[in-house]
């Protein structure tokens, strides 16, 4: 399942108020590493979607969200729990490394 695209308007409902932890992938079309990590996040979503929701924020369209969360380097993958950022992963990583980073949320 491809990740849902979240906007400033839907951020509260989709991310901040979610019961489950939510990984927000801040990305842009012109960012090569973002495009390379995207299918890996889709796989993780398919395998662990029951425990962790994965959504995307296009920083080109959602300046305010990128600015609010201090994004200066993408891909930036922030995990939100109870409305707070509890983990930030910067840069594209292979699947085993991402799974290790996300271990606390998916196991």
């Amino acid at each position: 399942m491809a990740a849902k695209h979240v906007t400033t308007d839907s951020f509260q409902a989709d991310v901040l108020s979610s019961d489950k932890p939510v990984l927000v992938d801040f990305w842009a079309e012109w960012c090569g590493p973002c495009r390379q990590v995207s299918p890996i996040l889709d796989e993780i979503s398919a395998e662990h979607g029951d425990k962790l929701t994965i959504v995307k924020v296009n920083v080109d369209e959602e300046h305010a969200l990128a600015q609010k969360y201090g994004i200066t380097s993408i891909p930036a993958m922030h995990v939100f729990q109870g409305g707070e950022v509890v983990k930030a992963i910067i840069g594209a990583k292979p699947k085993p490394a991402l799974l290790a980073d996300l271990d606390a949320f998916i196991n």
Partner: protein
Amino acid sequence: MREVIIIGSGPAGYTAGIYAARAGLNPLLIASSVEAGGELMKTTEVENYPGFPNGLQGPELMESFRLQAERFGTEVLLDDVIEVDLTGTTKIVKTGGGKTFEAKTVILATGAAYRELGLPREKELSGYGISWCATCDGFFFREKTIAVVGGGDSAMEEATFLTRFASKVYLIHRRDSFKASKIMQERALANPKIEVIWNTEIAELLGEGKLTGVTTRNLVDGTEKQLDLDGLFIAIGNDPRVWLVENQLELTSEKFIKVDGRSSKTTLPGVFACGDVIDPTYRQAITAAGSGCVAALDAEHYLTGLK
């Protein structure tokens, strides 16, 4: 058992793929999961690759390399090699995705990885003001003050590219001249937003949780100064990526894979190396591509000798 496995997907790896596939060797090219296409994926305009008089984008060039390799039967796998055993007649290659492959020959085209400044908290501030990819992150520094460290072509390209976004770009370099190509230097030096700080290194990274500046140290008179910055882009060169093989074959004193003369032959039979991982000097897309061709021809010749 495979005839040949190619590790790496920059110009060297894909060119080796094109030549090995056309030789009927049915190569498997392990491209990496998140860095497929190599260094050129992070560049913008490529103006010096022959055959493209109007230039083209780095990612576009690498897409063409891949398509050309696949056209002749190169199998491209988006996975990461995590372990190899190259010492025997049968070469063993294991990936992060959990696959194990065997091959008669292996071509190493693993390239080079960004060199770090080696300062405390550099990792911690990466992604929080420190960046390694101008094309990815320049966007976040609109109307900001930033610096690029380095003196080569990459530093010139990044500084020039970043002026599209930033209001001010300092270019910090250790020496009193750049080693970048003339055309790239002239472009950077003529840009009114770029100010060069010569003979200077970064002594300290400043900021808690987010970079706010650096302390610079003048290497001629030793004076230190604070420079307020919103972002810092590091482009001080690359180190050959040899960790997979460094305990199995011989390296040069500069830690590149050692090859025999103008060939791609490493100190292990059936193992060949090409591209930036063997090249301390030229490191261009075109020289890497030429080197990949050499490796495929050497592997083909070696395989003929086995029959």
